[in-house]
């Protein structure tokens, strides 16, 4: 159906599509409700991974105790996408495919190595979430493709993640800066693996590899965190817009990066053994 109608628009929660159509920014001939496909609205896990249907309402993630304990960062990011009203409808698939650099769930998914299963007439392909968005509003999906589900490998023990964002209010805003972090600790309490991703500071969500490398082998002590913050600020390539300035985004990216790593550390220390 998607291939036959060039102006077809798929939607899950439609929280962005409805206003776009109404505001005249889109005029699709066909609307396809992905929620009607069972596989797209599901949340399951096995020994190896969690599978999240791309159109699953984010409230299903935040209200799932198992998922939320294992990936509190993804859960809290999902819980920041708009109000309770929005979370009844919003989905990881929609949040990602909008292509917004400020999408809250994307840094959280990225630091957890999330993969997207993309379906299309030429068959299915599995793509790392970090490769889906190619620019503001742009994705690697062809117009006849859509995301079916996300796969997230089970978190090893002594692993924790976190997502923080800066908004002027406490709710109902688009992130001015977002930071997702994940660390895994060795038995000695030092970091053996680290991931850090920032939202709203560049055309797409960016990984802070310099910070990740700096964290390895440390306990995220103050000196290391200063390096993390500096690396985070350094990787930013933001714009001045109505929501924030370049200088502010760079500075606060460092602050949130540091804070997110600390929370992830704390969670990692508490999570001994697979949930």
């Amino acid at each position: 159906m998607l291939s036959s109608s060039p102006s077809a628009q798929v939607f899950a929660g439609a929280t962005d599509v409805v206003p776009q159509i109404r505001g005249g920014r889109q005029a699709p001939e066909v609307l396809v409700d992905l929620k009607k496909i069972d596989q797209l609205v599901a949340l399951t896990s096995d020994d190896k991974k969690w599978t999240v249907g791309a159109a699953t309402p984010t409230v299903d993630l935040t209200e799932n105790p198992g998922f939320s304990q294992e990936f509190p960062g993804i859960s809290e990011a999902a819980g920041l996408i708009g109000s309770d009203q929005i979370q009844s409808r919003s989905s990881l698939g929609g949040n990602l495919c909008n292509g917004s650099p400020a999408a809250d769930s994307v840094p959280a998914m990225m630091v957890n190595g999330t993969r997207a299963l993309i379906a299309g007439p030429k068959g299915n392909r599995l793509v790392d979430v970090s490769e889906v968005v190619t620019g503001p509003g742009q994705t690697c999906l062809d117009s006849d493709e859509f995301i079916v589900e996300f796969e997230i490998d089970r978190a090893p023990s002594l692993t924790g993640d976190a997502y923080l964002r800066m908004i002027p209010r406490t709710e109902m805003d688009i992130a001015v800066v977002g930071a997702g972090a994940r660390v895994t600790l060795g038995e000695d309490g030092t970091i053996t693996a680290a991931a850090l991703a920032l939202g709203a500071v560049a055309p797409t969500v960016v990984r802070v590899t310099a910070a990740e490398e700096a964290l390895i082998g440390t306990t995220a002590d103050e000196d290391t965190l200063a390096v993390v913050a500096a690396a985070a600020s350094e990787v930013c390539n933001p714009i001045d817009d109505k929501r924030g300035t370049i200088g502010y985004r760079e500075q606060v990216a460092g602050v949130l990066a540091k804070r997110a790593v600390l929370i992830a550390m704390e969670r990692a220390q508490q999570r001994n053994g697979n949930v």
Partner: protein
Amino acid sequence: MALTEENPGYKWVGTRPIRPDGLDKVTGKAQFGADLTLPGMLFGKVVRSPHAHARILSIDTSAAESMLGVKAVITGSDFPDLAANGAHASDIDVANNAIARDKVLYEGHVVAAVAATTRELAEAAAKAVEVSYEILPHVLTVDEAMADNAPLLHENMITKGVDPAPDQPSNVASRIVHERGDLEQGFGEADVVIEREFTTKPVHQGYIEPHAAVADANNDGRANIWCSSQGHFAMRAYTATVLGVSQGTLKVTAAEIGGGFGGKTVIYLEPLAVRLSQRSGRPVKLVMDRDEVFRATGPTSGTRIKVKMGISNGGELTAAEVWMAFEAGAYAGSPVGAAGMTVIAAYDIPHFLVEGYDVVCNKPRVAAYRAPGAPMAAFAVESVLDELARSIDMDPIEVRLANAAVEGTQASYGPKFPRIGFVETLEAIKEHPNYTAELGPNQGRGVAAGFWFNAGMNSSATVHVNENGTATVVTGSPDIGGSRQSMALMAAEELGIPYESIKPVVADTETVGFNDVTGGSRVTLATGAAVVDACRLVIEDLRARAAKTWDVEIDQVEWVDGQAQHVDGSQPPLSLNALAAKSGRTGGPISANASLNARGVGAGFSTQLCDVEVDPETGVTRVVRYLTAQDAGRAISPDYVEGQMQGGVVQGIGWGLNEEYIHDENGAMENPSFLDYRMPVASDLPMIECSIVEVPNPAHPYGVRGVGEVGIVPPMAALANAIKDATGVRLTDLPMTPIKVLEALNEQSD
């Protein structure tokens, strides 16, 4: 009824019963502006300018008109040219703002409107109207508009209030000035002089209900209008002016109104809906979407204000010099006049000069917003006062007490104050435990005060006694925040019957005498006084009927607790019920009207205390505690007095921290949505603690002062003073966003 301050002995006034209109509002039955549907009704849509300043070269409506289902398309040429008819300048501005003629003056200015059988068709037809523009250079701020050689919005605008009158036109509509004493002497007597410059952005009233109007025109030239507004009599007058018809041809019914705060005292849609209805022969509904509300209605002015004040080491203010410029938007009429009158009115300052400018620019025409003009002025002066108090190491309440206006103080705007309650609000804050509560890390505390005149104006009320002894109280003041409850409480008190026996009604323009707008915090005072007068006429009539029944003189009859009593107790009392049941025998139905131009307006004062916590690494400010003390004169309905106080404070918090109009370089608004125009949400706030101060207004039967507006005056300065206390940085540019706070903190640490 004798009124004593301490124990008025009221049975209903001052109680907290359920509001008369509440049930309809919690069950979804209440009919707001957009809720009405008439048989055969069409949907309208307005075509708006995408340019901030442009000449309209041509409008081609043919494509829209030829669409199936499109029933009418109108443009400015469908309305009379008031300028050619020699109308008053302010009426011409109202008409040109309702629909542009030759020039558009802001993005969102109306250029045409359509009516069609469905919402979707109307939107498509609006898009099909082709307007050709010659884009003109624009000015967006007072600085740009006042610059030499600035592009002019109105080629014939000569500044008023300047002597001699300028010989060249400009974007400055008028200048106001207030002056007393000798500035040089005053600053000479000061030990500390502080001078600061402040800027504020336009902010919107932010009512949740977009403007809506339904019009149904008959082919005899008459038309019915249903709309949500703060004054359906005013809507009738403005609409008649724009249409060039007699007011008598229009009947306006007030829908329930979903918030206004001043922004619904003006017309936008009503004349368009009537004209579309006339052209199509069908009822037409016009409803704005939120984007239109932001781009084309409200807001209040952006400003630049300079304040210089002097104080003695003993804490006495010696002099003040204020310069301010207010954006009026596209047409003259910013609230700079009120700002000039209120800016230092709360204090007794011997030497001052206040100068203000009303400046047009290419933004939507400003509309009234809660104590129009006073909040920005207070932000500046109360911030400087805080700095002065710090500089002489004086407590912020004490410095205000030392200079506070009291009864007999010659107000800066002229007359002497009658009995006012400013000092009492300051003392209420000082005595409250919040004033000395411990502050945590990164927390700070700020105090600020505010003054607002309040208004009186014209009101009418009718009281009908029903056959069963209940009463209907009819007024023409749209109820925006619970005024039907105040009317019912005062009527119950007067008539001596239960509150539940009173049915308050807001009637249409043909059913009750004239009422000015619900604005200026006037309804409980002025319309309330009309209700009280009408009740007293009814009581007079009831006493006469009891006297007739008992065959005695009227002076032998008293009205006590809802019944007629013979002064010597020689007759069994006659209840309202009994008198109503037999009214036919004593002269017919019982009812009375009262109309008045209200007297005895009592000034309003508010003092507020704000505790904030500032994240030093992100600049985010959170309000952790808030207390507001306000003189209500007498709280007829304490629930809704608190509601006004809390609502005003929270609008002020939004104004102070996050709300602002953001425009791009082309003069288009960048944030016309509730997502990016950031009004406070529930999780941003603590409880707003209220201390109702009651210093009765001696000139009102129940001591009422207006309470609706003054609450929004202090919050921005209270926040700025608290941020200063928490961080050491002084912010002078609203809103005090995390970005600005962090920049200031960075500068401080450099």
